[in-house]
């Protein structure tokens, strides 16, 4: 099993969800986060007082899928989240040791 963690532009969330639905991924966790990579931030000015805003709003989408499906899911997310501009975000992939469905204690890929 692999965990796929994508930090994306907030306005791309709907497209990413649609793309995942289209390939049959039906579990995910979404969190509103703040962060930056190479994009850095932007400048805001209030009555001449300048503020450098480094951390920008992003959305983090997490899902755990069977190892064999990981590449397909990654491509779908990357395609849907892409604008081609700096700030599109990143995808991280982890190995997952175990998954347990709390309701009936199913384990492994059947729990996904």
């Amino acid at each position, binding site marked *: 099993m692999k965990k796929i963690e994508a930090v994306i532009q907030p306005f791309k969330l709907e497209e990413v969800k649609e793309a995942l639905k289209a390939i049959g991924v039906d579990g995910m966790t979404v969190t509103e986060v703040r962060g930056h990579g190479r994009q850095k931030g932007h400048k*805001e*000015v*209030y*009555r*001449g*007082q300048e*503020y450098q805003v480094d951390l920008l709003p992003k959305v983090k989408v997490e899902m755990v899928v069977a190892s064999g499906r990981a590449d397909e899911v990654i491509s779908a997310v990357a395609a849907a989240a892409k604008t081609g501009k700096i700030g599109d975000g990143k995808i991280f992939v982890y190995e997952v040791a175990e998954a347990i469905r709390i309701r009936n204690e199913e384990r492994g890929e059947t729990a996904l």
Partner: protein
Amino acid sequence: MKRIFSMLSLSLAGAAHMFAQAAATPPSPTAALEAGVKAAQSSADNAWMLVSCALVLMMTGPGLALFYGGLVRRKNILGTMMQSFILMAIATVLWALVGYSLSFGEGNPFIGDLRYLFLAGVGGDPNTTYAATIPHQTFMTFQMMFAIITPALITGAFAERMKFSAMLLFTVLWSLVVYYPLAHMVWGNNGYLNAFLGGKVPCLDFAGGTVVHISSGVSALVCAIVMGKRKGYPNEPMKPHSLVLSFIGACLLWVGWFGFNAGSALGAGSLATSAFVATHFGAAAAACGWLLAEWLMHGKPSVLGGISGAVAGLVAITPASGFVKPMPALIIGFIAGIFCFYMVVKVKNMLGYDDSLDAFGVHGAGGTLGAILTGVFATKDINPAFKDAAGVALPVGMLEGNGGQVVNQVIGVAIAWGIAAVLTFVILKIVGAVTGGLRVSPEEETEGLDLSQHGEEGYNLEA
């Protein structure tokens, strides 16, 4: 009920009329007509003045409370709004007990006497010295709304760090020793600066350039300097938490200001219209001025800049509103927009004091500019303030040939600055000693005024 009563009194009057006819002296029909005209004018003036009273109160709450509330950080919204709201209560009580009397009792040129203590004798009959066509009580109420908003304006300077108890004591003392004397000097009968009622130095201040804006703005500057900067200023970000609230507040201020300035005509005649027009034009031109300056210097015209400019223009036009024509109103507003932008954006940062919400940069600076420009642009065509022995209107402003008026205005400004600066400093020292420090503790400041001073939060988003 009222209608029945008036019909009854009519028929009673009719009966009296019949008796009178039977007696020796028939009343002249013109006298009855004159009385009717007088009553009609009084009703019309009173209607506008009561609306104006409500408009000026609306400037403090919700106007100023929203304007200031949006500019602070989220943890201080309630504390900031409360500083405006509590003055609607405290300043009102104080005004009823002694404030009105100390401001408008005849007294000496510097302070009123106690003839209206507890509002004695302030009833439905007009006070002909101040406003001959409206009930004395209406005049008292209208002036009260000014005594509420003026100390509320100062709260912008010490926002986010003053102890509530200290703020209460400060505003009470400030009303007693700064506001009432100054209001008396400029507007009270026999006041030292009163241009209409026998002042030694006739200073033109239609609706409160010196009394309201210079006094609050200069006191704000002293507060900011004496109290020191907010913890972390200017290194930590202190962004306004909701410019949406500030926007609504500023627009309410703009509307309320029609009561403030046009109401200062104390009647519903053409002078009120003229002041209304000047007020609106001043605000509009100042919004343009500030935005233009900001756009040129910072590359973007901001919403906060637009609304700040409008308020600056309203401040500057306040003393002039009942003395100038529409075109000078546009000029005064435009200059004020650029001048206050410069004061807030450049001068404040150069001098390094933390006037958190720019009470000085907008009200002190705009009020001073407006007071002086009033002496330049005032005209007898709008307000024949000065007359010779034969009753012929004399020139009023500098452009009309009365250059000395600018000198009078500068004297008025200097007196207002002096009183506000010195007495505010003294009051702050006294209040600090009595309440054990003007500021909340550093821990409370970090926590925010809402929780530390009032035990609640403005936004319970999870509730």
